[in-house]
């Protein structure tokens, strides 16, 4: 099921419009047949694949008696050594793992393993946020019980104090700070549950970015609804 949500952004240029709109979202569910759930997600120029395996059997080291063990594996396009200072910037695993552990109903499947693998294919800005979105879509495709849905949104702070929503890589490189948010939607209310930042900023900039992200997330959740309706052939 291929669904496209268009928005009138021009992917590369900086204009007043690009400040408040997400880039075009396109996704295809169940792309990997061996996985329990998978998605190929494209947001602007950034392309990410995510796959979910589980809930299934695990080794003793990954078995918890009262809840499911969530293992998140992020695969960058180019692997770098652990000591590489630049590499940890793009590592979405801790952010995604923490978010999944709160959003997935882990108490329902104790002593099992839920594995989420996210593969970076192209990074054209906002990679971590796109990985978060892909993670949720893959979990939904796999039918894993969740307490709420979540998505990722990235906001860049430019040197002239302007905020750019979902920046392409060119703009992201010029930014003084990049914020990645994970937002959840429960009972039609959007809240920010996780965040990570790169760069330096004033707290007021962060607050503005949170508000912008919460507004933008509504679009992504609408996209989820469309995707799931198509998948389950409803309306």
């Amino acid at each position, binding site marked *: 099921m291929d669904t496209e949500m268009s928005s009138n952004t021009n992917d590369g240029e900086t204009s007043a419009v690009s400040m408040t709109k997400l880039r075009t979202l396109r996704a295809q569910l169940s792309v990997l047949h061996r996985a329990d759930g998978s998605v190929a997600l494209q947001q602007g120029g950034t392309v990410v694949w995510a796959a979910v395996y589980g809930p299934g059997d695990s080794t003793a080291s990954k078995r918890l008696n009262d809840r499911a063990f969530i293992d998140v594996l992020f695969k960058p396009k180019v692997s770098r050594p652990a000591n590489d200072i630049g590499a940890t910037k793009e590592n979405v695993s801790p952010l995604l*793992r923490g*978010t999944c552990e709160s959003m997935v109903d882990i108490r329902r499947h104790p002593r099992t393993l839920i594995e989420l693998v996210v593969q970076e294919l192209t990074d054209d800005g906002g990679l971590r946020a796109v990985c978060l979105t892909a993670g949720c879509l893959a979990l939904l495709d796999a039918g894993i019980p969740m307490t709420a849905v979540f998505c990722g949104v990235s906001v860049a702070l430019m040197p002239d104090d302007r905020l750019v929503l979902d920046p392409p890589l060119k703009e992201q490189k010029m930014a003084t700070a990049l914020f990645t948010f994970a937002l959840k939607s429960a009972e039609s209310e959007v809240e920010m549950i996780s965040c990570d930042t790169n760069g330096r900023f004033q707290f007021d900039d962060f607050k503005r970015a949170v508000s912008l992200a919460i507004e933008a997330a509504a679009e992504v959740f609408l996209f989820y609804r469309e995707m799931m309706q198509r998948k389950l052939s409803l309306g």
Partner: protein
Amino acid sequence: MASPADLLRVCDPGEYYRSFLERDLLPDGRATSEFRPLSLQLGVISSAYGSAMVRQGGACVVVSVQPEVSVPIDGSGFIVVNVDSSLDATDASLSMQAQLEDTVACLHSLIDDDAIVNRKSLVVVAEKIAWTLYVEVLVLSVDGGLTDATVSALVGALADLRLPSISLKDEATDDDRPFELSKAALVISDARHRLELVDYPVSSTFVFHKATCADGDAKKRKRAVMRCICDPSEQLLALMTGACNVVVGRQGQVYRVNRGGGGEGVSISTLDTVVSLAAKRQQSVELVIEQALRMRAD
């Protein structure tokens, strides 16, 4: 015979902590807005050019810095961090491993953003000589507060660092031949100088607790106050998911706001409280570091 309180702590930690948090207190006697005391000692490793040991609450971390001469790339030197923990891989709980991972990410982020030291200032001779600082972080014990203690120890060690003055023996302007560090003759003087620190970033960790409402009124529950708990202990960290780590510097400069996921959303007003607490903490920790530097100089 264990006291009822100890039994409650083992059987139902949530209820145990809730009884304290409802009164804005923690079991060790401090208020939820108080941090555990920080003790900082500089120059603890005499063989290192710079070192610091920080004890915050139950976390004890030692950081040592060894400078090496290298060739600059893109007009800046390098800082390489290696974290060695005494926590046995099998013993360390998930929560501790996650903390360690977060600490490393935090350090990398601070170095990459030139928050403590501007790596360009590590260049001694343009395009020829620069310092590479090898930072060894040794984690001795953890009871929450790992990131906080490690960041303060790193700042302390870099503040304590005394670099020798070096220069090239013959400043030959033979630019056609490529510069080879191994063949260069260096003059190393006994004079030592300190690094100019750009800022004194301080890390603070918080967890959140939503005050429960006795009645089932959903609207009231939503408006229920979100309590910020400063500097949680290990057990509290494992109990409450969604710890928030904030690194602030002087004059409201924020370097990192990280929250790795928690069931409850965090509102702007909660973050306001968090950042103001973190800013106050930054001021008090900066004083501690400056005092330690003065004592070292004596």
